[in-house]
Each structure stands twice: as structure tokens, then as C-alpha cells.
């Protein structure tokens, strides 16, 4: 009996952790109970991107989008939708300001503005079945590349398409492939960099989880173009599900003869091995990654020689990010003209962002280049929860920068065409500080942390610097010592002991660390600090001179006060805060306004949390 309905249950890490697999099992049991198991097929797919509302399911062919499902909803869902054919309103997604739920997935704003190329198959294929991928024109690009194109033509196609590295540096992929192809040395290697060390970034993970074969096909095409013999997928050990899916995909590809010797009788010999990253952020840097794959200590080394000439085992190696590889098959299949229409003049195609932080629809989105922050945050992201004021967005993780609300309408795209940050003279450091981001270029690796008024920019800078400082390999002095000293200064500032010279010191050390560090980690570690200094200097000054943290995040700078009116009228002096205060710094009687003794108060903020009536005011 052919299926008449396909239930696409999301099995990305987000939904799985929300127990979407239990929902699937309940669904299966219910369908069998109702005798519908032959009519309704259940398909577990990769991550659909809308993690905020997981676990979610899309019922095809109707395209109905159900979200936040629990096992309890299943009987009703089966009864109503599958038996009676009536979609269940209650389980649909209703955007905050919208009057009614939106049944069709394609109408939901989160999905509508997206343009899927790297994530074209997400939610539509079972990642653990190669047949699903082949059904959606899987490996057709490879066939075209092997039979109708010469390696040079492939490289030409990629170059003309304007594809650039999605890892963060944005180096033109075509140029890189050309260099590795022309480098001397056999065998050649290509590496898929799935280290993704940035905190809060999970683009690569969801590509692996929802459509691993697109990465494999991309690498095959790259191997053909470059003449590489071996491929390595370097994936974080902290992505167990993604690791399992890519390994299954590689195994299936081998069984189907798409990996190994004489692939599709084309003479191409190519195989992929998987190496697991041991959790060091620095191993995202290409030379450190190579060292890690070779089993050595994952420390970066001086360049030149660049990996294109002497990389893995000293042979020419091409390292690209997961998303870059995933973009290759569509370009080859549809041609470079189709691809170059998408995005802006300098940044072609789409970019996958992991939208996190203070935004309603946190999740994974793939949007065309040139989209503005406003569209991203409000149209797709569903705005800031609690209608707090949008303050800034942090892109590119610890190597990226903070973009203030003011630049919300600038299109997101790559930095200056030659891919190198523009270095500015030390002399004009304090005044014109465009060194980091040129107007209109805010791209990073893809992590997008939305921050609202309650976020203290100094604390954010400290958080990211603490991360890079801890992850620094310690081989070269500036990065090892510089990041530590800057961290000490920032910590002092957040504790209210900062001085104005500290700002000067931060800039000077930051500049030296950026200029003289050996590898990318050191060169970009100061960025969060330098950008927050540039756009939110006032907050720093508030911390230093006024000893106040505008966002009340830096606890040492807060002073806690109880509003006598609210305390009595609404709280009747209930005394909850008095009991809970660990320092016994709150005094007052029943029905009397309570008072905090600021000398004893350790500013732990417990009273704020326990007071039901928000009587405690933080200045």
C-alpha cells in the first residue's frame, strides 16, 4: 500500500534533546493502534533549523508544521489529522504578534525569508538513507563533474560563481583550489574543517546531521578538480550525532562505490577518513588542524609554507569549511550564473547563521548574502523577547566583532575583497579606528548572538576574551601573555577597579596581539574587546568612573535597594528576601518596608530573584 502521508519528524540534536524521538515512537505506536501504519510513513530527518520550537514535525504533502510536540499530543494529532484529515490548530506555530496559527511551514516567517542552498535537503531527507539524497538529485552534480567537465572547468565554475570560504576568512574557494591543483607533490589531500570551535555556533553540526551526503559530494567534486587522492573530515568529538551520521553516510557512499577506487568508472580514486577533534578551539586553525590529524600536538605553525603547498603529511592540502563543501554540488548542478545572482556584488550565495541569544526564534537560518540585521533579527528572528530594546549583535564568535544596533541596516557580507583585514597605523589608533570592520562588512563564521539592553558589553567582551585566552595554545608570547593581561584588565573593570589608562592599555595590547600573533586565534582574539571599545566606549567609562554597570550584569557595581512602597503595598513586607539573604543583610518586620544594609550586602542578587513583587531595585 503506497503511503499517502509522510511525517517528517525532526531528529536534529536540538529536537532529540527535547525528546523528539519519544514523540516519534509514540506516533508509531498510535498509528499502528489505528491501523494507519501502511498509509502514514514516519521519516526522521535532520535539523530543520527552528530549534526554539522543537520538537517539531512537518506533515507532507500538506506541508503542515507542528511544533513543541509532546507524547501527550500524539493521540489527538493522529485522530484529528490522519484519521479525520483536520490539522490540529493547537499544535501549530503562532508568531507572537500574529492573530492565528500558521499551518503551512512555507508561510512561517522564520522559513519564508530563508534561501536554502547548503541546507536544501534539510527536513526533506532521512540523513541516514543515501536513497533519499539520491532522490533529490543527489550525486548528479558529481556525475556532471566527472563526465562533462574537466578539472579546470570545475575550478573555473567555482571561481566564476564567486564562492568564498564559509569558515570566516572568506578566501575565494576557486583561487584556493587552483593553488592546490598547481602545487607539486603527491598524493594531495582535501580536508573538511568541521571543528567549529566558536561557542554558540552549530551551523556545521546541523549540515552534518541533516544532509551529510552533500558534504561528501562536494568533497568528491573538489577531489576531481584538485586531483586529491584522500579526504579527511575533521569533526568535533562534541558532536556525537553528527559524527555518527557522517560515518554512516561515508559507509553508504563506499558501499555504493561512490568512494574508493575508480568511482563511477571515471578513474577517480578517492576515499574519506574521519578524524575527531579533541576539543581544542585552536585546532580550527588550518595548520593546527593538520597537526592534530597527523597525531601531533595541535599547535599552529608559522606560515608560509601555506597548506596549499605543504599541508597534511607535507603534501598539498586544500582545507574548506563544511558549509563551503555543501555549496559546491548546487553550483556545479545549476551553473555559476544561477549562484552568482544570489547575494551581493562582493559576497555571492547564501550564509548559514546560528541565530542565538536574545531573539525569539533561535535556530539555524540560511539567508542570502546582503540581508540586513534588521530582517535577520526581526523578520526571521521574531524580534527580541520581552520587547527589550535591541542593543547589538556579536558575529563570528571569539574571532568576530560586536556590531551596534545603529548598523542594523547594513547588508551582511564579506570584508574587503582581498580577504585581509586592513591594518591601520598605530598612530591613528585612537581616532579613526576602522581597522577592524569596514563599513558594510560584518561577516564572521556564522555565529550570531543577539544582545538586548540587559547585556553588558564589557562582560560580553570579557566572556569571549576569557574563551580565547583559555584556548590559546601558548606557543607565541603576545597571544599567551597579551590575552591574559587584557583579561585581567577587563576583569578589574567589571569589578569596578578599572582606570582610564586601562582602556589605553587594552587598545595598545590588543593592537600588538592582533599584529604580531603567530596564528588566526591570536590575530582575532582582541576583536570583541576592540569593537566593544569602539562602539560602547561609554559603557566602559560608566564602569570605570561611575562604577556602574548600565545593564546591571557586573554584580560588584550594582547597589540593591528595596522600594518601600511596593514592598508594603503589594508584598505586605512578607520578609521572603530577609530569610533568603545569605549575608543576613536585610532588615524589616511583617507589614513593614524592608531595608538592605549595603555594607553587608554581597550583591549576590538572591533577593531580586525571590521577591515576587519585584520590589528590589538594582542601580
Amino acid at each position, binding site marked *: 500500500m503506497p503511503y499517502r502521508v509522510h511525517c517528517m519528524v525532526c531528529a536534529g540534536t536540538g529536537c532529540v534533546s527535547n525528546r523528539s524521538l519519544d514523540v516519534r515512537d509514540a506516533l508509531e505506536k498510535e498509528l499502528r493502534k489505528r491501523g494507519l501504519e501502511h498509509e502514514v510513513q514516519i521519516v526522521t530527518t535532520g535539523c530543520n533549523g527552528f530549534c526554539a520550537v522543537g520538537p517539531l514535525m512537518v506533515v507532507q504533502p500538506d506541508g503542515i508544521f507542528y511544533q513543541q510536540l509532546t507524547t501527550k499530543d500524539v493521540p489527538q494529532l493522529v485522530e484529528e489529522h490522519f484519521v479525520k484529515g483536520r490539522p490540529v490548530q493547537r499544535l501549530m506555530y503562532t508568531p507572537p504578534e500574529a492573530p492565528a496559527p500558521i499551518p503551512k511551514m512555507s508561510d512561517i516567517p522564520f522559513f519564508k525569508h530563508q534561501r536554502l542552498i547548503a541546507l536544501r535537503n534539510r527536513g526533506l531527507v532521512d540523513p541516514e538513507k543515501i536513497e533519499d539524497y539520491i532522490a533529490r538529485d543527489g550525486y548528479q552534480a558529481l556525475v556532471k563533474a566527472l563526465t562533462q567537465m574537466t578539472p579546470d572547468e570545475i575550478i573555473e565554475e567555482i571561481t566564476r560563481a564567486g564562492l568564498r570560504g564559509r569558515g570566516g576568512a572568506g578566501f575565494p574557494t576557486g583561487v584556493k583550489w587552483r593553488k592546490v591543483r598547481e602545487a607539486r607533490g603527491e598524493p594531495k589531500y582535501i580536508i573538511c574543517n568541521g571543528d567549529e570551535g566558536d561557542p554558540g555556533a552549530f551551523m556545521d553540526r546541523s549540515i552534518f546531521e541533516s544532509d551529510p551526503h552533500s558534504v561528501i559530494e562536494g568533497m568528491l567534486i573538489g577531489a576531481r578538480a584538485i586531483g586529491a587522492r584522500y579526504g579527511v573530515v575533521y569533526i568535533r568529538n562534541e558532536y556525537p550525532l553528527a559524527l555518527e551520521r557522517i560515518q554512516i553516510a561515508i559507509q553508504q557512499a563506499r558501499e555504493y562505490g561512490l568512494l574508493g577506487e575508480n568511482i563511477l568508472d571515471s578513474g577517480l580514486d578517492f576515499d574519506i577518513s574521519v578524524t575527531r577533534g579533541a576539543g*581544542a578551539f*585552536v585546532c580550527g586553525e588550518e595548520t593546527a588542524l593538520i597537526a592534530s590529524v597527523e597525531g601531533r*600536538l595541535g599547535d599552529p605553525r*608559522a606560515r*608560509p609554507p601555506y597548506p596549499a603547498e605543504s599541508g597534511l603529511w607535507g603534501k598539498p592540502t586544500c582545507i574548506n569549511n563544511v558549509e563551503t563543501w555543501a555549496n559546491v554540488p548546487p553550483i556545479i548542478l545549476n551553473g555559476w550564473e544561477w549562484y552568482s545572482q544570489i547575494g551581493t556584488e562582493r559576497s555571492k550565495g547564501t550564509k548559514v547563521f546560528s541565530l542565538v541569544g536574545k531573539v525569539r526564534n533561535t535556530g539555524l537560518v540560511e539567508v542570502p548574502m546582503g540581508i540586513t540585521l534588521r530582517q535577520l533579527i526581526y523578520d526571521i528572528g521574531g524580534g527580541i523577547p520581552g520587547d527589550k530594546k535591541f542593543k547589538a549583535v556579536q558575529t563570528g564568535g571569539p574571532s568576530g566583532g560586536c556590531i551596534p544596533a545603529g548598523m542594523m541596516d547594513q547588508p551582511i557580507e564579506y570584508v*574587503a575583497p*582581498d580577504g*585581509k583585514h*586592513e*591594518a*591601520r*597605523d*598605530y*598612530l591613528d589608533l585612537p581616532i579613526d579606528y576602522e581597522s577592524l570592520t569596514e563599513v558594510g562588512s560584518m561577516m564572521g563564521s556564522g555565529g550570531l548572538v543577539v544582545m538586548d539592553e540587559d547585556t553588558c558589553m564589557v562582560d560580553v567582551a570579557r566572556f569571549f576574551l576569557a574563551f580565547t*585566552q*583559555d*584556548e*590559546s*595554545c*601558548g*606557543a*607565541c*608570547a*603576545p597571544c*599567551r*601573555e*597579551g590575552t*591574559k*593581561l587584557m583579561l*585581567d584588565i577587563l576583569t578589574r573593570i567589571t569589578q569596578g577597579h578599572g582606570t582610564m589608562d586601562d582602556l589605553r*592599555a587594552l587598545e*595598545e*595590547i590588543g*593592537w*600588538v596581539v592582533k*599584529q*604580531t*600573533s*603567530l596564528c588566526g586565534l591570536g590575530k582575532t582574539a582582541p576583536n570583541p574587546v576592540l569593537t566593544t571599545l569602539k562602539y560602547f566606549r561609554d559603557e566602559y567609562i560608566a564602569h570605570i568612573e561611575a562604577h556602574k554597570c548600565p545593564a546591571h550584569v557586573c554584580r560588584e557595581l550594582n547597589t540593591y535597594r528595596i522600594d518601600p512602597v511596593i514592598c508594603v503595598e503589594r508584598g505586605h513586607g512578607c520578609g521572603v528576601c530577609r530569610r533568603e539573604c545569605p549575608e543576613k543583610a536585610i532588615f524589616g518586620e511583617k507589614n513593614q518596608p524592608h531595608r538592605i544594609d549595603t555594607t553587608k550586602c554581597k550583591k549576590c542578587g538572591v533577593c531580586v530573584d525571590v521577591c515576587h513583587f519585584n520590589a528590589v531595585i538594582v542601580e
Partner: protein
Amino acid sequence: MITVNINGVERQVPEGTTILQAARALDVSIPTLCYHPWLKPFGACRICTVQVQRPRGYELLTACNTPCEEGMVIRTDTDNVRQARRVVLELMLARWPNVPVLQQLAAELGVEKPRFRSEFCDEDPEACILCLRCVRICEEVVGASAIGYEDRGIKRRVVTPFNRESEACVACGACAQVCLTHHIKFEPEDYRGKPPEFLLGPNTAIFIPTPQAVPKVPRIDPEACIHFKTNGCQKCVEVCEAKAVNHEMTDQEIEIEVGQILLATGYELFDASVMSQYGYGRLDNVYSALDIERMLNATGPTGGRVLLKNGQPPRAVAIIHCVGSRDENYQRYCSRVCCMYALKFAHLIKERCPEAEVYDFYIDMRAFGKGYEEFYSRVLHEGTNVIRGKVAEVVQAGWSKQDEGTLLVRCEDTLIGRFREIPVDMVILCNAIVPQRDAERVARLFGLSRSPDGFFLERHPKLDPVATSTDGLFVAGCAQGPKDIPDSVAQASAAAARMLATIAKGVVEIDPVRAEINEEFCSGCRVCNALCPYSAIEYLADKNVSRVNSALCKGCGTCVAACPAGAITGYGFNDRQIQAELEGLLAVR
């Protein structure tokens, strides 16, 4: 060749030269810390930062490891460069304020007072500043890779694996040599594997054995030299002007044809550690005679001074005779020389440590030589206490009431008939003289038999002590039996005289009793070949006959009897003669 512009000066440099090398060629000074000529540039300290012009602005690169490119414009004196070097230095000073090499660099770069102080600040002037030169030299040059890093970031430290003594370390001292801050020190206190009795301290990989060594040229010790272990280093090759160092040289076997051989292979010292009661090799300050000879030697490790292990002179010394000699379970014979050198030790120790008390434990004082007895009485007058009695054992004093470190010598004083226990600081054992370890193999090599005590057997103990039963083979010195220097010299000259006599005569007489093979009847069955103890019969494959080398044949006749074809005649005792004797003997009833 590529052209580069350094500080405005155009310069042609070969492909692959680094900016630092090019600059130094133009004697443009660029400060460096972690750079070292022997090592591959690493770029850890970043002090050698220079400014390279880029099409849209500039870039700061490290000079030590950036290769020059065609048309590269390099500036080493811009504000950016100075600022970058100053701040990098300040960062390092924040962590290691008192390291002299950093302070000296700070003076050069004009950094007066470091502005920052790191939480991990280390005031030690000899702190490790993580320049990693040590790790790199151990891996790249020495090839032992004995040290590496632990942890990462600010907590990264240079350590041996698990902070334990690394087996891979060959104690070559290379790391100590390149360490910028002398953080790594090299104390030669733990020598590696030198036999105690010869050297009391370690030697470097290449050394002159002793000042009076003949020939007085340096020698490479393959165990200590790291080239043999790791195929690396070879610094000695580089520095030797005369280019005389060659690691490939090995022992060569040279074959010389000689008429006569004098075996003077000498003796070996009995390994006293077997007699555990004396604690040699177990207790400190218990030395064998040869150790003391080394110590007393002016060119020895202690420069002639008699010192204990802790470097102090001894207060009391015990000398024990007949260790292993005149002893049923070891050597039954008397080693003849120990009594006299024991007295020599007593005299020298008295001379070198006047206040030291010397006790000499003997069974019978054998001062038999010319002037020996007079020396013995002189030593007695110098106050050496002589105790007649075989020492039972030497124990660590710590177990009994006296303080730690002194040794107790327990023995039966047979002259006064009482058991005595004498505390001393140092014990000297007069080990027996025993045949060389390979005496058995050498004897068989020369067809020489050995007397029951293992020394080579002379032809006649009284009448012909230097010759052996084999003509042309002579033996002299301790190889024939323990004896002191005068006797050895006498024997040596006797043997030399005997050999010269034969050489002078020019002809070697051999007595007529010989065997000879009649090649007419010999069919080369080779039955006789293996029989001859003197391997005098050789087989000529081309003529398919065997032939007797009359010089070697002693005429024993074994082969004559054995030859199945009757082809060998034994002159003086041939078959017909013997048959005639038989007929004669049995003719009469």
C-alpha cells in the same frame, strides 16, 4: 636570486633566505630571543617583528621565519615595529620582570618601567621564558625528544613526560647550553654507567682519557656521544679546524705475519662485590685497590686528594689484604703484590691526610723484594696500625650506636687473640689478581694449556718460565701468574731476549721426527685433516691430496696410524721400522 629592499637598501639574496638572514647580511640589527643559528626558526617570541609593505597598507611579520619574496619592501625601524617590539617585551616583562636577557633587551628598546604585572608573574631571574629553544634542540639536533610541553596557554610549561626523569634524555647538556635564562642546569653528579673502579666522575662524549694518555688525543665515547644514539648533533665535527673528527671510524682488524708471539695479556682484578661481606658496590666509601690508585693519581678525578664520597677527607682508613687471595672459595694462590701496594697506600694516605688513622689488616706481610722490608718498617714508624687477622665483615655503622656514614671493620686480631671492631670512614680492599676473563679463549687460540690457577702454562716453572710448549710462543708478566712490576719487567726482557735469539739465528731448527704424505698414494680422503691438533695438514682441493706443513707438524704420528691408504710415512717411526721391532721382540721365545 631575488631582490629585496631593506630600509631603502636594495639587495640580491638567494631564494629562500629569511628576512633576518638578509638583514644580518646588511648588518641591520634585528633583536631576537627564541632564534638560534642551530635551530629551525620557530617564531615563539615575535621580538624580531618587522614591517612589510603590502599593496593596501603594511603587515607586521616575524623576520626569523618569513622567507623573502621578489620585490619585498621591508622596514625594520618604523614606529609600528618599535611599538610592537616594546609592547611584546612589556608583556614578557609583566610575567618575568627579573630575567636579565629581557631587562637587557628592555634597555635596548627603551622600555623603562614595565606597565603591567601578570597574575602568573614569576620573579625568578632564571625563570623559563618559554622560548622553547631547549625543546627544539632536543628534537631537531639531538634527536632524543626527551622534553616537551605540558598544558596550554598561560599554563604551558616545558617539562619531561610526567615530570619524571626521562629515559630518552642522554644527558648531553644541549638544552642547558641553549637555555637563554640558565633555567636548565647540568650537574654532572649522576654519571651514567662508567665502571666505578676506573672513573669516579662522568666524562663528556669526547674527551682525553687522562692527561698522561698515550697518544694524548681526544677520544669519542660511543655510549655518551649522542650522534650514535640519534644520528644528530656532530657539533664537534663542525668546530674542529683540522677536520679530524670522523664518526664512521671503527676498530679495524689488522693481520700481521709474525714468527713469534709474546703473550703479555696481563691480569684482571677480582670482583670484590662477590664477597658481599665487604660491601663493595653496596656500601659507600668501600673502594677497590684500583679505585684508590685512580684517586691518588694527580690527574685523577679528585686531583690526587683522598676524599670520601661526600667530598670530605677521611678520618680513619682501613686497608684489607688478601681479598679473594689465599682463600679456598675464591683464589687459593697469593697475589704477591697486594702487601706492598697496601703499604704504599698507607704511606700516601698518611702523607696526604696527616691526621688520618690508617689500619692495615694482613695475614702475613710479604715484603720479599729488594728494599721492601725497609719500606715496611718505615711505614710502621709513620704510625700505621697493623692488625694481623682476616677481616670478617665491613658493616654500615648506622645500625649500631656510632653516627651514620662510618663503617665498622670487624676482625679477629690473632696476635692478641681478641675480636675487634674498628670504626673507619673509608675501606680499601686489596683485590686478588685473577686471569683475564678471556684467558680460556686466548689459550685455545694459541694451543696453549693453562695451569690449574688459570694463568698460562709455561714450558717449565723453574728452567724455562718465559717459553711455552709451543715453539715461538712466549709468555711474560701477570698473564703467567701474579707478580709485581720488577718481576714482570725481568720476564719481559727474558722473553724478548729469547725471541731475538731465534730471530738473530735466522733459521728455525725443527727436529727430524715428522710425518709426510706421499702424494702418489694419497687420494684426498681427508681422514687425516681433522686429526692434527696443530692443524698442520691442509687439503689441496685442486690436486685432491692433503699435505703436511712440516713447520707445524710435531711428529706425533697419529695421522700416520690413521691413514687408511698408508700414504703417510712417519719419519723415525715408520711402519716398516715398527714391524721390524715387533719381529725382533717376538723372535725369541
